[in-house]
């Protein structure tokens, strides 16, 4: 043992060579005789004669051979521990339990070791009595303060980390211990804090206890009492418990709201300690979010003609007159500088935003006096708060009330863009952006724009934080103007001929590009915002701004070139990260330009674009630059779409990147983008892609076979089969059996076993959608007389999927049902009368009828077409 003590001492000695040697020794010891090593570590941890930091080091080493962050190592560790002889594990367990309460440092490392061991053992339903031991440590009157505290820490960790039915079954002793430790009679703050922390983690486990009124009363009582503790961290944590309870157990809170929760949280909001005030505000933000969800649930239930499962008690509305004055007062407590720190003033702004959404018209009258009274206040804190309050209520109130409010405010608000204080201008320009989002018609009036545009241009040259918000305001303004113009009529591409910003379009583009070139554009995310605004501007540009859009392409390309030239001179990690962001943004800008580009203008510019993109992709290889790669691939997709088969001239150079993307399982976004590119290539090249297909197909199949790739990727590979089939036509027969096997397999796995599991429903929907896309493409590809025979053996399987979609009723989206209707039509067209008996079934006919009556155009069109195909085939006797 003494040797081990010396070694452990060295691990914390601070001398690097000693440390390395010591760690190497420990590694050896762990491999040579693992059971002995563990026992020794636990002995050191428990030995009170040993100096405290060595005991801590022993505990740390012990913990580190039991748990790991990484999943694979974690499961290796798990199996290694459980494979140890029972007596070895018993010794270690006894030692770590014995160590509790004997440590002189905080937090207890023994508690963490107990958590690590329990995390493994509970899975095997073992060592459950550790919880009883910990409980009696806490409830035994003769226990020391340290013993109680560290036992509670252990329980807290266990509640946080262990997800298993075993720990749920132990909720009662856990709660007994926690409640005991939280009592107001508990003399030690340390114990009370550890108990409150543990309570915060235990709340999810206590569903049953909350359903029992007596037990619920006790839990609520100790938590509410803890919010009044003298120690402020106890109060903060207790308030966090209340926040979480409101989410978990909203429907049980009625009896506590008026007498306890309301006064406690209102007092907390007024507290001068930021952490306490923040939790008070968070409580009400959380109430709003819950009630917004409940309102959505009620609406959905009403549409379906059923009673909602949970009902809102409208606490937010009731509390509004009491909490709003506190919140507006809190708004005035901004920092002098714009720090990233989360402070009550910011939390109050968010809370008001949520209150507005929740209480709608009710908030306007109550907050208006504060806004008008302080809009011209000499103190900038109040001016900023007034504008903040105004900007925060723009979503929620009804259109009519909002319109009246904004109509009065817009001109004075533009005036505040000259304010002496940056914070005021910053918030004012943000509020203007919000107006653009909510009142498009008001903000695009000529008399408004006449003042607004010059003011925005000026502000774009101000502090980065102000310019950042100007960029967003310009984005929103462009969207608003485009939307207003599009409502007046568009061409067949959906573009209006002109809009009210056409005359300043060029200038807006120039100003934004200048902004992205500002030397301080790295601060406050300004450069990103500048590019995003540029993209939004291009996306929402009418026909008469096309020349400027075209010219932007050249500018972007030039910037790309400059960037590639300076890349090698950058060394620091932050410079490189910035560069990656910039490359991503330029690729994204190319995407939006290409989306607008007229087909005939592309050949002139495609060479430099592709050269730039290839260079970027080249540089991504082997680096962690998934984001850039993804954006570059999406830009390539846009190029393929506008160039069509002409893109073929780049295929030799581009193919290696595409293949590499298809096997990039570590980065699902890149893999998805690559699958997307392949789909688009199929559409662009049609039959001409056949010679390349063996290789691509092999890569797609590898994705499906792979066990580590993120599960959301695979469905897209299945959908891609459909695009390939359409491109190849009869030639697809070559891949038919393999692809069908995968599709059928996936379709039969796409089952909803739990209608309450939203994740599952979403995934099943994704899977079914892509299976149907795959099937649909294949049916359409094999239309010829000779191919029909190939198709027939698979028809039954396809109809089975359609039937499942139909039977899922409203659990399937309308769009999925529409696609299923389309597939029926395709099958009926191909197969003819023989298929009728299996598609004219009750669920399928009902789905067709529902879709025919749908308000959704695609569903209506497809269902009607399919119904017609069915009756047409019937008549062909």
């Amino acid at each position, binding site marked *: 043992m003494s040797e081990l003590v010396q070694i452990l001492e060295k691990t914390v000695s601070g001398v690097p060579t000693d440390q390395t040697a010591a760690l190497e020794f420990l590694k050896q010891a762990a491999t040579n005789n693992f059971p002995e090593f563990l026992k020794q570590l636990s002995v050191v941890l428990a030995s009170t004669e040993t100096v405290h930091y060595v005991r801590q080091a022993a505990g740390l080493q012990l913990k580190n051979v039991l748990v790991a962050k990484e999943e694979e190592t974690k499961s290796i560790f798990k199996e290694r521990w459980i494979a140890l002889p029972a007596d070895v594990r018993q010794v270690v367990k006894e030692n770590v339990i014995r160590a509790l309460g004997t440590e002189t440092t905080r937090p207890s490392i023994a508690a963490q070791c107990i958590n690590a061991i329990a995390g493994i053992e509970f899975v095997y339903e073992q060592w459950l009595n550790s919880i009883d031991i910990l409980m009696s440590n806490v409830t035994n009157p003769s226990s020391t303060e340290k013993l109680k505290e560290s036992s509670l820490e252990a329980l807290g960790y266990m509640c946080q980390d262990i997800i298993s039915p075993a720990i749920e079954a132990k909720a009662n002793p856990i709660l007994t211990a926690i409640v005991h430790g939280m009592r107001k009679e508990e003399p030690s703050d340390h114990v009370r804090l550890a108990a409150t922390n543990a309570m915060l983690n235990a709340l999810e486990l206590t569903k049953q206890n909350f359903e029992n009124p007596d037990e619920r009363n006790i839990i609520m009582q100790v938590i509410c009492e803890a919010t009044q503790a003298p120690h402020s961290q106890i109060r903060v944590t207790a308030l966090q418990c209340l926040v979480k309870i409101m989410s978990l157990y909203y429907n049980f809170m009625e009896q506590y709201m008026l007498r306890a929760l309301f006064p406690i949280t209102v007092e907390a909001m007024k507290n001068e300690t930021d952490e306490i005030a*923040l939790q008070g505000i968070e409580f009400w933000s959380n109430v709003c979010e819950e009630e917004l969800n409940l309102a959505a649930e009620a609406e959905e239930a009403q549409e379906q003609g059923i009673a909602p499962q949970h009902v809102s008690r409208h606490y937010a509305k009731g509390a509004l007159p009491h909490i709003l004055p506190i919140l507006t007062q809190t708004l005035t407590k901004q920092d002098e500088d714009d720090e990233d720190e989360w402070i009550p003033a910011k939390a109050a702004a*968010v809370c008001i935003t949520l209150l507005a959404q929740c209480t709608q018209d009710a908030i306007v009258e109550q907050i208006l006096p504060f806004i008008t009274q302080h809009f011209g206040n000499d103190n900038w804190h109040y001016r900023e708060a007034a504008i903040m309050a105004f900007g925060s209520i723009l979503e929620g109130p009804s259109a009519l009330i909002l319109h009246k409010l904004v109509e009065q405010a817009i001109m004075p608000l533009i005036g505040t863009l000259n304010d002496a204080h940056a914070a005021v201008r910053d918030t004012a320009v943000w509020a203007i952006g919000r107006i653009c989002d909510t009142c498009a018609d008001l903000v695009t009036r000529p008399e408004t724009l006449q003042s607004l545009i010059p003011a925005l241009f000026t502000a774009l040259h101000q502090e980065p934080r102000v310019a950042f918000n100007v960029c967003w305001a310009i984005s929103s303004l462009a969207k608003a103007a485009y939307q207003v113009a599009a409502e007046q009529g568009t061409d067949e591409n959906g573009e209006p001929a002109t809009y009210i910003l056409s005359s300043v379009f060029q200038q807006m583009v120039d100003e934004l590009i200048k902004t992205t070139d500002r030397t301080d554009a790295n601060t406050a995310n300004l450069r990103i915002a500048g590019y995003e605004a540029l993209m939004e501007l291009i996306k929402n540009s009418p026909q008469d701004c096309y020349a400027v859009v075209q010219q932007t392409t050249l500018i972007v390309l030039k910037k790309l070139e400059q960037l590639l030239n300076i890349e090698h001179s950058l060394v620091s990690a932050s410079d490189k990260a910035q560069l990656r962001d910039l490359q991503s943004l330029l690729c994204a800008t190319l995407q939006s330009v290409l989306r607008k580009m007229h087909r005939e203008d592309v050949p002139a510019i495609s060479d430099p674009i592709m050269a730039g993109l290839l260079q970027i992709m080249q540089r991504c290889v082997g680096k962690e630059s998934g984001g850039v790669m993804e954006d570059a691939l999406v830009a390539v997709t846009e190029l393929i779409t506008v160039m069509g088969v002409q893109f073929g001239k780049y295929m030799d150079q581009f193919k290696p990147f595409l293949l590499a993307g298809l096997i990039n399982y570590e980065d699902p976004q890149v893999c998805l983008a690559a699958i997307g590119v392949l789909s688009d290539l199929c559409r662009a090249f049609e039959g001409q892609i056949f010679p390349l297909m063996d290789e691509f197909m092999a890569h797609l199949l590898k994705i499906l076979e792979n066990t580590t790739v993120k599960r959301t990727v695979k469905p897209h590979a299945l959908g891609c089969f459909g695009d390939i089939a*359409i491109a190849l036509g009869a030639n697809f027969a070559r891949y038919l059996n393999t692809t069908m096997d995968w599709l059928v397999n996936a379709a039969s796995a796409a089952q909803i076993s739990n209608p309450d599991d939203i994740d599952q429903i979403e995934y099943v929907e994704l899977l079914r959608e892509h299976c149907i896309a795959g099937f649909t493409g294949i049916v359409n590809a094999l239309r010829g007389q000779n191919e029909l025979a190939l198709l027939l053996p698979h028809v039954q399987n396809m109809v089975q999927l359609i039937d499942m979609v139909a039977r899922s009723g409203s659990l399937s989206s309308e769009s999925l049902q529409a696609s299923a209707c389309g597939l029926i039509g395709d099958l009926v067209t191909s197969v003819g009368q023989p298929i009728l008996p299996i598609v004219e079934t009750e669920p399928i006919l009902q789905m067709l009828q529902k879709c025919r009556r749908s308000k959704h155009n695609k569903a209506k069109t497809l269902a009607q077409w399919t119904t017609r195909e069915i009756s047409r085939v019937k008549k062909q006797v």
Partner: protein
Amino acid sequence: MPMDNAVDTEHNDRSKMYKNSGKPDDLRRRRVETSVELRRQKRSDDLMKRRNINLEQDSEESDAQESIGESTKNKTPVRITPEEARNILLNNPSLEQMQFAFEQIRRLLSINNNPPVDDIINAGLVEALVKALEVQDRKVQFEAAWGLTNIVSGTSDQTLIGVRAGCVKPLVPLMFSDDIPLAEQAMWAIANIAGDSAQLRDHVIQNGVIPALDCLMSKLEKLPKITQRTLAWTYSNLCRHKNPSPSVEVLRLLAPGLAKLISVDDEQVRIDSCWALSYLTDGPDENLEVALKAGVIPYVVDLISSSAKDQLAVPALRTLGNFATGSDLMTQVVVDSGILREVIPRIIKTRSNSLIKESCWLVSNVIAGTQAQIQASIDAKLVTLMLDGDAKSQFEASWAVANLVHGGTIPQVCTLYKANGLAVMCDLLKSKNVEVLCNMLDSIKAVLFALQAISGDKLENAKEQIEECGGLDSLEALQQHENSRIYETALGIIENFFSNDETDEEKENGIAGGDTNMQFNF
């Protein structure tokens, strides 16, 4: 290992909501989504094109309903604004221009996302649509009826605007048309209006919708399935809504049609007509008589016993359940139907919660009837079954039990004891619902008195049961209840039956709210 970083993440989420700070991340995500969405769109356009090739080949077969199918994709639709449509219509339009304008208006109203309903209303086009119904041109009438359907199927305000513009009056005659798609479209609009409120329902009835329906009913066998379904749905909307309910005279006129519809061999038609019947029978005895005379009961019973699906069985059960709420004579209809013997027990044992609830409600109302009717329920072992069920049917069962002790004979009351009902009844003493508590206390009291009257042994046995299952604890707790009737009844039971037993032990275990220092029973 930090204790908990929930605080940080929570602030992180909130801070993204502060001003524009969450936007950069948000937009990157949205960009990717856009490219996926565009690809999906391309895929679907592509398929549409392929399918439309087939569509054109036999375009001579053009039924008005289906004309949407081709036109949305084939030619790019010439979208005109409501203003432009208005201008065309104001300037002495030719028939072709009218056809064009009304088709365009209908198209605008059929856009999926936010159709510009209010713009059309503001442009004064609702009145134009109403007038168009009387233009003697099939296309104009059809487009107008369709457009109006989309307006009146919107919000209640929008429905009202359509009605105020006088659309009901000219829509009704169109329902007599031999052109079935046109008649159906008109009916569809009418059904939407009737479904909005009791007042609008009466308004369409006053405008003669019933004869129009009779006319369609006379062609029932020749109507396509879709039209039959719309017809049934229209009937259901005409029977719906209370305050006021439709008059019994109206129901008398509707009942023969419903009797015919419920025998149609189509599930959806049956579902809607059965719902109609359930509304119709949700009223006084004279309503029940209307249904009885129409001869629908055998069909209803058949639907309950033979439908595997809840959608059909629920309205059918509800209809029969309504009979059970009527006079003893009406209740006897339920007993005579024979449904209590096999069908209801099977449902309670095997079916979904909503069906179980309906069944229990029906049974509890039968038990509220005569002693013979109570006996019929007891013979079918229904009380036992309900009490054995899960929490939800137990709640319903509490009403059945309460009805039994009020109306049953002493031996009938004692069946509750024989069926091991006391434990369940005691369990319900933990309920928060005052009515349930009252019912259960009265019932327990009644059972104990009934047993006392029959046999002392059984009474002792029952008392033991109550003690063992924790019922006595509940009774004692209820003595503290704020409701005077509850504490008095609880007190009464204890004084009458349990006052001799010493119960010190129990007291020790009781949980009083305030004291947190004890070892409590989590």
